[in-house]
């Protein structure tokens, strides 16, 4: 068990080291999300009423679209340097590669959220700094990275992967996005844990389902 965790961490840590040096993924996700937020700030009349109504949708749409931009890099860089093959010839099961890459992507998305959400709070003048928001961000980031890592691996050998990944990813994460938007709506309107519980449960169920399914089918999509 410890060995398994160490292997997953070694893969995620390697991605973190490379990201700290290259800043490809986090800059892409953060930059894209901030741009979307900024455009909506100028495009829509952000009265308190409007901000509470449309803010949660704008926030999660921005993070979802930005996430796709970053996830595209998750396997593309491994393919460009042929390093994915070094992982594939290692004596580890493919699901550990999946979990390691997913953990790396989770950390990138979380880092981007740490920058994007305070900016959102300032631009939309909404109070979001509550423990409930931490929970919403965590379950959403887990789901995004679980599904995104799988589809990034599936689309990596496709020539038009930049187009294919959003086409595969966004429809599948729609239930998760709905849960995140609805939970955040309750939150900005002063809702309680109880009110958003059903949406959070949906998000958690989505995460568990897709982590299990993705880990099971991952080994079939990486080989020639």
């Amino acid at each position, binding site marked *: 068990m410890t*060995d398994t965790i*160490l*292997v997953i961490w*070694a*893969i995620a840590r*390697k991605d973190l*080291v*490379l990201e700290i*040096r*290259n800043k490809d993924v986090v800059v892409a996700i953060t930059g894209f999300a901030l741009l979307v937020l900024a455009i909506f700030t100028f495009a829509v009349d952000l009265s308190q009423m409007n901000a509470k109504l449309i803010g949660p949708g704008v926030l999660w749409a921005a993070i979802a679209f930005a996430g796709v931009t970053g996830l595209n890099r998750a396997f593309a860089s491994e393919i460009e*340097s*042929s*390093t994915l*093959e*070094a*992982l*594939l*010839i*290692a*004596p*580890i*099961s493919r699901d550990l590669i999946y979990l390691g890459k997913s953990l790396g992507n989770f950390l990138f998305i979380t880092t981007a959220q740490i920058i994007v959400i305070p900016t959102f709070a300032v631009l939309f003048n909404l109070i979001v700094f509550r423990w409930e928001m931490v929970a919403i961000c965590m379950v959403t980031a887990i789901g995004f990275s679980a599904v995104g890592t799988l589809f990034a691996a599936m689309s990596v050998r496709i020539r038009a992967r930049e187009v294919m990944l959003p086409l595969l990813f966004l429809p599948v994460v729609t239930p998760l996005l709905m849960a995140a938007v609805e939970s955040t709506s309750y939150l900005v309107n002063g809702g309680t844990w109880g009110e958003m519980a059903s949406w959070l449960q949906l998000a958690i169920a989505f995460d568990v389902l897709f982590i299990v399914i993705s880990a099971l089918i991952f080994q079939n999509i990486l*080989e*020639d």
Partner: protein
Amino acid sequence: MTQTNTIAIKAEAVVKNYGAKAALRSIDLEIPTGGVTILLGSNGAGKSTLLRVFAMLTRIDSGNLTIHGLEMMKEGPSIRANTGAALHAPMLYGDMSVRENLMFSASILRLPRKDTLIYETAEKVGIQDRLEDRVRSLSHGLQKKVSLARAIMHEPSLLLLDEPESGLDGRSVNQLDQIIAGYRSHNRTVVMTTHIIEHGLEIADHAVVLQHGNVILMSNDPITERSAIMNAYASVGAKL
């Protein structure tokens, strides 16, 4: 020359197609345990595809393949634990140092005494002075050495090398020969492709000549059968 009865790799009717293009057409092959087997053939003969199949990077369309008696489709992780591969691309992270690359491999291979092991392996291939250099800053030849170090770090019983001499200077080729000789002396198996047939035949215990995805000659005595191998090699259009 090493002679054993044990089979390291057994391929039966192995077929691999890339779309409409056949890369391997019903390959039947037995590679004995211990010693060096060289795969010869012109470009596109199927040498690299065969090595990738042995490395479990390419899935076969049909046929059976066993490595050290283990079925490839069922015993993946166990086979890979005893296999090392340095293929055409160095498979290294350019923005990490040589040490970091080897440390990462040692971590996912769950090897003990990582620091000592990395230094000892680097010394074997002659890169102990370059451990802190970023891989991106190294020449192609040095990257090949790092790739070789990664492949042999866990002392696998099967070592797969795709044109290991390419990009290496004379001294480095000698180091490579010493590593291969060390493998032979420990009754481990080396399977390698090469375009330098003279060098290949000097170090080989077995030779396989491929053409259009078929085995056209298998020799267990390349010294005696040297002229037959050379003729087969020339007949497939490869440049001597």
